């Protein structure tokens, strides 16, 4: 089963629930086999199967709920996101440990989380991401940029929280 581990990991990140992720993966393979005739040889198999997984998620209860709570202005201006000034502290932030990054990723809207994971973890090209998410290349770039800003902002907030705790404990 090609991409099995990676699809499962991606499904867990989308659904935030292992049982639901298992259902998603199982359904993805069933749909892939059933609809294999729709796959065009020579096109991207990975993008095709990830697209099935994502569509399956979007029509699931969790997916519909997540989609309903995502702000509609994902591709709009950067209102609401603090401006990130690169400072020595922010450099330190970006080197932060995996757990902090995991927490920050979890708190991102699904649309930001999925595009970051496809780009950074799956190392998909912008073209592959465009095919997987069915969005134009320009949108891939703008959404990715906003997702990164949101992640850095989330990391900065967590970093500030941690620092305040240390101050409060007199450390």
């Amino acid at each position, binding site marked *: 089963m090609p991409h099995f*581990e990676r699809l499962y990991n991606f499904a867990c990140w989308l659904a935030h629930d292992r049982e639901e992720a*298992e259902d998603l993966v199982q359904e993805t393979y069933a749909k892939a086999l059933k609809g*294999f005739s729709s796959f065009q040889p020579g096109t*991207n198999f990975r993008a095709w199967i990830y697209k099935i997984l994502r569509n399956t998620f979007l029509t699931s209860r969790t997916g519909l709920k997540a989609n309903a709570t995502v702000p509609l202005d994902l591709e709009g201006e950067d209102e609401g996101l603090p401006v990130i000034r690169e400072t020595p502290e922010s450099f330190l932030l*970006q080197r932060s440990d*995996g757990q902090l990054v995991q927490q920050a*990723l979890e708190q991102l809207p699904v649309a930001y989380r999925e595009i970051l994971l496809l780009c950074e973890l799956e190392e998909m090209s912008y073209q*592959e991401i465009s095919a997987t998410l069915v969005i134009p290349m320009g949108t891939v*770039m703008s959404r990715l940029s906003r997702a990164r800003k949101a992640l850095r902002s989330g990391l900065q907030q967590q970093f500030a929280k941690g620092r305040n705790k240390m101050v409060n404990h007199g450390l």
Partner: protein
Amino acid sequence: MVCESWKAKLDTYLDGEVPEQEMRTFDAHVRTCPSCSADALARVQLKRTIQVAGKRFTPSAEFRRRVQQRIAAKPRRSFNLGWMFAAAAILVVGTLTSVYLGTRSGRDQVFSEIADLHVATLASSSPVDVVSTDRHTVKPWFQGKIPFAFNLPELQNSEFSLLGGRMTYLEQTPGAHLIYDVRKHHISVFVFQERSLPAERNEDSLSKKQLAFNLETWSQGGLRYFVIGDASTADIENLAKLFKAAS
């Protein structure tokens, strides 16, 4: 302030998505600008942290078995019709997958999994993540991505050429997947850590004809190698020999 326009494109540059000409100009700028190089370094570190942090969930063996059983239980009629639409490579996948319908040993399952990985990769429009014929480019690309190092053979005076490589997984174990070309046949070489694979699959060395593919596998220096492709047995053996000599 001078660097604002560079910084705006820094992420696209680090994703390798700016045009080649611009990439060279970018390279030159980042090398000479302390502010941009520090920023680029920080962003690369964040990318790497996401890569590590993102690999968080692993499916259980029981779940894998369940999905395999469910796939195997699909009615053959519609299943085979689906594959009939695809080209020759896809037909091979169909044939391979139908093997799941029968009882197979764990070893054969691994061979089929290897064949699946080989075919699925070649069916992809971007079969390799690092595109290079230079082993000195491909080998370092795996650093930090897989938990072991391996040697690539010198191909001068041989018929083989290296097309590139990508990361792969077998039984939840990360490994290297390299693709070679010989007279228009593509051959995959997979390298995994021996101890990470189940013991029942660890024959010292084996050559095998698996459906339409020739496959050779052996263990050397704690690593398990698989060489698979639709090239002749002699080609598979020759490539395997080059790897054995290089390791």
